[in-house]
């Protein structure tokens, strides 16, 4: 069975600094998709970034980038130039490319950006 682990329940970072959130996963699949979602206090789940496992290049979206290490089954999220609006719960998620319709989510990391 696939699992997603986020080992950092809470983190904090100073405004304008850089922070990295960790995510590891376990699967026997060779093709899959990985995601980071942001859930601010409004509780709306917002897609931050996605990565396709067959692409070796790390995905980037503005200040957000990932470090995808397929052999190590690691998928960390780096937030550069942190802003107060980045304060949120962050969830890592996984889905195999075939054979299932279920997304597997981690337990989340609560990030607080300090002024």
């Amino acid at each position, binding site marked *: 069975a696939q699992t997603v682990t986020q080992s950092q329940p809470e983190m904090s970072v100073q405004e304008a600094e850089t922070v990295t959130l960790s995510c590891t996963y376990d699967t026997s699949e060779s093709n899959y998709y990985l*995601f980071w979602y942001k859930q601010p206090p409004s*509780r*709306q*789940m917002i897609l931050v970034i996605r990565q396709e496992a067959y692409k070796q290049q790390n995905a980037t979206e503005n200040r957000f980038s990932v470090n995808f290490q397929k052999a190590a089954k690691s998928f960390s999220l780096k937030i550069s130039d942190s802003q107060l609006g980045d304060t949120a719960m962050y*969830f890592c998620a996984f*889905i195999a490319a075939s054979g299932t319709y279920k*997304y597997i989510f981690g*337990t989340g990391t609560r990030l607080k950006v300090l002024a």
Partner: protein
Amino acid sequence: SQTIHQWPATLVQPVGSPLSLECTVEGTSNPNLYWYRQAAGRGLQLLFYSVGIGQISSEVPQNLSASRPQDRQFILSSKKLLLSDSGFYLCAWSVRGTSLETQYFGPGTRLLVL
């Protein structure tokens, strides 16, 4: 572009009363649809998912049920609410089998059972 709607946004219901939460998706066809529940400060619990009209897969045995009467409509129901049904309910959609595989979420419904 695709949009997903959920209503109501907030609901306060007495124990033992019925429940109906609705989710609709616009701008796409034959989406996969999902219902999740989230307790305060916790992760997501998958309740139901559907890959087509009338096709419902249940993940958690409980007093909730789901239905998909139309392609882009997903309904979460209960005949008699329990205190433990309180939480934040999220509907989501995805399109399977493409390189654009991604799950998108609605704004959610806050349910408080008293």
